[in-house]
């Protein structure tokens, strides 16, 4: 019977070409949307590594472009942090860039000795950053006063993901990260002092890329414009206003804006989710159009083949056989469409044009798309197939 279905569909290729083309395009659109959804779901399921509750992000405008702090700026910045720390609601204060959920990021890359390029996100933070964000150190340690004495290297804390990408299964602690310039003229190399379980700066929907944190000193000249303040649980929103006023009193020429990280997270997630919802809506509308088109074409197909259906009934096909025939034929057409679509879809895991999307994500997206396109074809064939079973054989044989 399966051979019969494929032979019939192949021999009627002109008639079925439109259906196959429609299903082919549907499959590719579904593949794109589903793979995006799978990629998003995978990102969502990965650990973020950051505890954002009860943390306030204070954005500092130092009134002018400052790539470096003067000693006076550093002193003022330390006074601002001390003023924040002195408030009874405050449990900890840290500074750094980029702050979580700010949508700003800093990407850098280098080549390993084997020529493979490693791309990772980076940031510069003070020693308190780990406590304020409850970061989980899995190996080594986070930055501390101990690093003040570091000579000949700059300390760096990296994520397990980056450690695995660069060092594989070897222990990364004490190893240099990055490539040295051939003439040795570069700055001191980075040396890994600690590894974090995870650190995804922009939350659950952020690209799951390796992360490297550099050390920022309160008394250093490297400027920053974000300060994180961990407050006691249950601290009300009114505290934000009081915090800003307190900081403003210390640095009258600077401007401060406070926002809980949980609020920043909502905004950031919305920026990721809204395009996905739009994409899903467009894809859903497209699928509906395809479904209506398929039902129409199949309905017409059944009407045009009334005599053939009558003949099959006369030759021993029960109503269930006729239903299977209609559904089986669209399944065969779908197989041709999916087969052609697979030639294109399966290029992606092979060519890997987006290094942040894994081959497994493509394959899961592919498998779900295949199931969905067959389900779409099946659902669309149900009503025409039902109509076909209602054809009275004696009348069908007389049908002109």
């Amino acid at each position: 019977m399966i051979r019969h279905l494929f032979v019939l569909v192949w021999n009627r290729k002109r008639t079925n070409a439109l259906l196959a083309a429609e299903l082919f395009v549907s499959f590719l659109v579904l593949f794109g949307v589903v793979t995006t959804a799978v990629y998003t779901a995978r990102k969502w399921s990965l650990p973020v590594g950051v505890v954002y509750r009860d943390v306030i992000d204070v954005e500092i405008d130092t009134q002018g472009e400052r790539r470096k702090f003067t000693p006076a700026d550093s002193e003022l910045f330390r006074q601002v942090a001390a003023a924040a720390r002195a408030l009874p609601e405050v449990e900890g204060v840290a500074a750094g860039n980029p702050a979580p959920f700010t949508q700003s990021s800093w990407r850098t890359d280098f080549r390993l000795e084997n020529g493979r390029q490693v791309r990772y996100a980076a940031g510069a933070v003070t020693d308190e950053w780990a406590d304020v964000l409850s970061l989980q150190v899995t190996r080594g340690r986070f930055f501390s006063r101990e690093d003040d004495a570091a000579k000949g290297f700059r300390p760096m804390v990296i994520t397990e993901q980056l450690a695995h990408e660069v060092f594989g299964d070897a222990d990364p602690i004490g190893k240099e990260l990055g490539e040295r310039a051939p003439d040795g003229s570069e700055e001191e190399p980075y040396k890994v002092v600690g590894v974090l379980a995870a650190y995804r700066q922009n939350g659950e929907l952020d690209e799951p890329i390796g992360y490297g944190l550099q050390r920022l000193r309160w008394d250093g000249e490297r400027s920053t414009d974000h300060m994180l303040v961990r407050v006691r649980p249950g601290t009300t929103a009114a505290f934000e206003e009081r915090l800003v006023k307190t900081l403003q009193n210390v640095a009258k020429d600077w401007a401060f804006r406070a926002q809980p990280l949980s609020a920043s997270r909502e905004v950031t997630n919305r920026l990721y989710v809204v395009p996905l919802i739009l994409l899903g809506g467009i894809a859903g509308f497209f699928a509906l159009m395809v479904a209506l088109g398929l039902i129409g074409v199949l309905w017409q197909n059944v009407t045009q083949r009334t005599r053939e259906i009558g003949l099959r009934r006369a030759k021993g096909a029960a109503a269930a056989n006729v239903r299977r025939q209609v559904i089986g034929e669209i399944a065969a057409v779908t197989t041709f469409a999916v087969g052609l679509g697979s030639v294109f879809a399966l290029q992606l895991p092979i060519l890997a044009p987006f290094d942040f999307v894994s081959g497994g994500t493509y394959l899961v997206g592919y498998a779900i798309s295949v199931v969905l396109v067959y389900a779409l074809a099946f659902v669309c064939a149900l009503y025409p197939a039902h109509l076909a079973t209602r054809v009275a054989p004696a009348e069908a044989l007389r049908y002109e």
Partner: protein
Amino acid sequence: MNLATALKAQETPRIVAAAPAGPPAISLRGVEKVYRTDRIETVALQSLNLEVGSGEFLSIMGPSGCGKSTLLNVMGLLDRPSNGEVSLGGRVVSSYRDKDLAALRNKEIGFVFQSFHLINDLTVVDNVELPLLYRTMSGRERRRLALEALDRVSLSSRVHHFPTQLSGGQQQRVAVARAIVGKPRLLLADEPTGNLDSAMGDEIIGILTELNERDGATVVMVTHDERQAAKTQRIVRLFDGRQVH
């Protein structure tokens, strides 16, 4: 004797004298078929009693619209009678479910139609295999039986042709091969020579006669052609849905 009296006299079932012992191939008792729409009620068959003996070759004749094809459809279990009883090989099948009727049509009845009803997108051999698709058997066995049936109608050289590449006579021979491929006990032919010239028509009747005489198949043929009907063992004449002779 007026027509009504004459018709009543003809309602008595006729048993074929030459029919062998055992249940008739098909038997109709008090069969009526009425087509109803919102406004019109059309009586296609009324008070029809008919028995076709096993191994008989019978013709059904009558003017257009007298109910010949309706009768054939009822005999072939393609249509249910509005009233009355249909028996196939001694089993009353009028109340069978659709699925069971389909199985009976598949195993015990072969149809030949005036307009051949071949599927133009399938080759000759694929057309002939069609009834066997609804049986449980291997593809190899299906192909073997189809080729055997095509050999019976002398079309072994045309198995991979498409119907549109064949003459009308050849197409009807394919239809006959398709009707006999499942080795049915009853062959129903609805004007099988209606679309053919007389030579091709003779050829088809020759094949049906051979199937009847050699294989013992029961053949019921609707025809307008007195000459072809005369070649059969018995002629049943219908007029306005009643058997008149």
